[in-house]
């Protein structure tokens, strides 16, 4: 059991219980509690401030253009990460997110360029591809009770083959301008992919927190057999989680196509690990030990901002991964120490 710390409001009425002296929360304690919960968020703010002030990057990093650019670029990763998040809430891993991103971007590209069908159909085809693949994952995992790690990693290998069959070792170009425009244009000063990101993030957060489906996934993640015994539709929900995950990954694939203007086998597959890493990283902040939308966003942008800043600084190529990895390890270790000190008891 991971010791999740949750806010215990000391306001609750405990009638006729004179013995229960509510312990006073000292300011020091409160501060360390905040540092523990928002450690990563604070670190994100710190590195942003650092790159904004550091002379080497101060002229290029804190510009609107650069900020817009970071946001727009990461929109793909964020959506891919949210795709992986949905089944993860129900304790199912989706290692095929990246492969789905790839296959859907290729599908959309093929439908649009080689079959010459309208863009809307292409976009739909991409998302549908993702949905169908997710559904296959979901059916096998949910109804056959198979290990999600095995099935989705197998699926990811399989899709690598499908991708290279479809793309045939070429890079598919010739995406309609309207799609490319979507990927690169602004609306109210914010890049359109960022709007998409916002919409998707809100939708997923809403879905997880405020719908019966989301609650069901949370319950399954907490105690699957108990979920069965209170009559929650476990298998169906798991299947739907994967289907949704697939559709979101498909959307990420379409967005990738819109941003890069091309599709090829192997492109997109690299999103799986960063997506999962962002979620895990995010689980160490805000709601400790839980996989959340907000945490995932923090996780993605923490990595993205430091890469961007170091790229702009022209750091040697070993610096960036070193910095990133060290920051993650230190941030998490520090917040773990704080948590331990605060909880004191629970060893």
């Amino acid at each position, binding site marked *: 059991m991971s010791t999740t710390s949750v806010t215990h409001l000391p306001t609750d009425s405990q009638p006729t219980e004179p013995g229960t002296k509510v312990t006073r929360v000292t300011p020091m304690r409160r501060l360390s509690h905040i540092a523990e919960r928002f450690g990563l968020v604070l670190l994100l703010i710190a590195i942003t401030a650092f790159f904004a002030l550091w002379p080497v990057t101060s002229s290029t990093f804190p510009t609107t253009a650069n900020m817009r650019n970071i946001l727009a670029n990461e929109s793909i990763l964020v959506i891919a990460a949210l795709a992986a998040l949905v089944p993860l809430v129900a304790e199912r891993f989706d290692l095929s997110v990246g492969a789905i991103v790839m296959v859907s971007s290729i599908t959309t590209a093929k439908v649009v360029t080689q079959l010459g069908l309208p863009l809307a159909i292409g976009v739909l085809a991409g998302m549908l591809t993702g949905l169908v693949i997710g559904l296959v994952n979901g059916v096998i995992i949910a109804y056959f009770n198979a290990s999600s790690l095995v099935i989705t990693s197998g699926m990811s290998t399989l899709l690598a083959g499908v991708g290279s069959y479809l793309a045939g070792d070429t890079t598919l170009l010739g995406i309609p301008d309207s799609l490319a425009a979507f990927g690169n244009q602004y609306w109210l000063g914010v890049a359109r992919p960022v709007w998409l990101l916002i919409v998707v993030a809100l939708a997923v957060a809403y879905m997880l927190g405020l719908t019966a489906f989301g609650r069901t996934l949370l319950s399954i993640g907490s105690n699957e057999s108990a979920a069965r015994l209170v009559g929650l539709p476990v298998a169906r929900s798991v299947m739907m989680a994967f289907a949704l995950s697939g559709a979101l990954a498909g959307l990420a694939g379409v967005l990738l196509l819109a941003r890069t203007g091309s599709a090829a086998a192997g492109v*997109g597959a690299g999103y799986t690990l960063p997506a999962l890493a962002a979620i895990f990283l995010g689980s160490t902040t805000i709601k400790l030990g839980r996989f959340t939308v907000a945490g995932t966003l923090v996780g993605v942008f923490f990595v993205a901002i430091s890469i961007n800043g170091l790229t702009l600084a022209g750091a040697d190529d070993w610096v960036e991964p070193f910095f990133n990895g060290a920051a993650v390890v230190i941030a998490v270790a520090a917040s773990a120490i704080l948590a331990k000190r605060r909880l004191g008891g629970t060893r």
Partner: protein
Amino acid sequence: STVAPGCSMPAKGLADAGKALGWKVTIADGKLDPSVYNAQIRAAAAAKADALVLFGIDCAPVKGAIEAAQKSGTKVFAANALDCDDKYAAGRGKALFDGELVWGPDNTDYATFTDTCVGPGQADWVIAKTEGKANIIQLRQDDSAGTRHIGESAHKRFEDCGGCTVTTVSYTGADLAAGKLQGKVSAALQKAPKANVVTVPVDAAISLGVASAVQQARAGGREILLVGQEGVPASVKLVKSGVQSFALGRPWRWTGWATADGVNRMFAGEKAVDAGFGFGSMDADHRPKADVYDGNDPSAPYVGNYKRIWGVS
């Protein structure tokens, strides 16, 4: 990336040249990952860079980012990179580069250079060495357009050879990092017990498992020629030690300086000129003198020449 010295060495050359020219050069490592290339090209554009130089990064996988960069006023210059009108970019690709390095007489572009010089150059050496009786295992990496050009053009030349037999083994970039190459090559050597030549499209593959597989087969008494392309320092070493039989050496650092010259000319509204750096065949009979191959006559004073042309010292 560091695993692909063919991309990082010219970048260093460019950085040195840039220093001489008083430019601010920032190197970004794409880590062989297209989504990283995209982010970095866009970051460069957002930082209002004047020009962007692509080493080993083709246009097609980053088309959107290049267009975005050009829109925001950054010029895109290609060194060893294929434009979007490449034949392995399916769809109606248009050439996008603002400037390109010239790889030979008559404004030879990089695609033509690989198709006519690199792949066939490799093949010609094999054919000559075996007197037209080569039994070749050709390793193909077709998931990247650059290596595919080399593989395809070499293959064509082998077909014209007459007495040559070719067994193709394909691998992907992912196989390299996961150490799958050695197994594949060993299997291929078993499948073709008469094979006496192994060719690879990039030298990186040799040290990542091909050399070991070949050495093992040689230990079993077979005579095998191991043929590469690039001539980066590691393969210079391998050629010297006899593990690698041939490298089609290319002057990587010089490429960086030539690129700087091309970019300089692009700013001045001129076209790049042929730097005249063909390539150096390295084999047992033509052992490279230095540890780093950088043009056929290592004393070639290209640095001084460029500085003179640019009017700096």
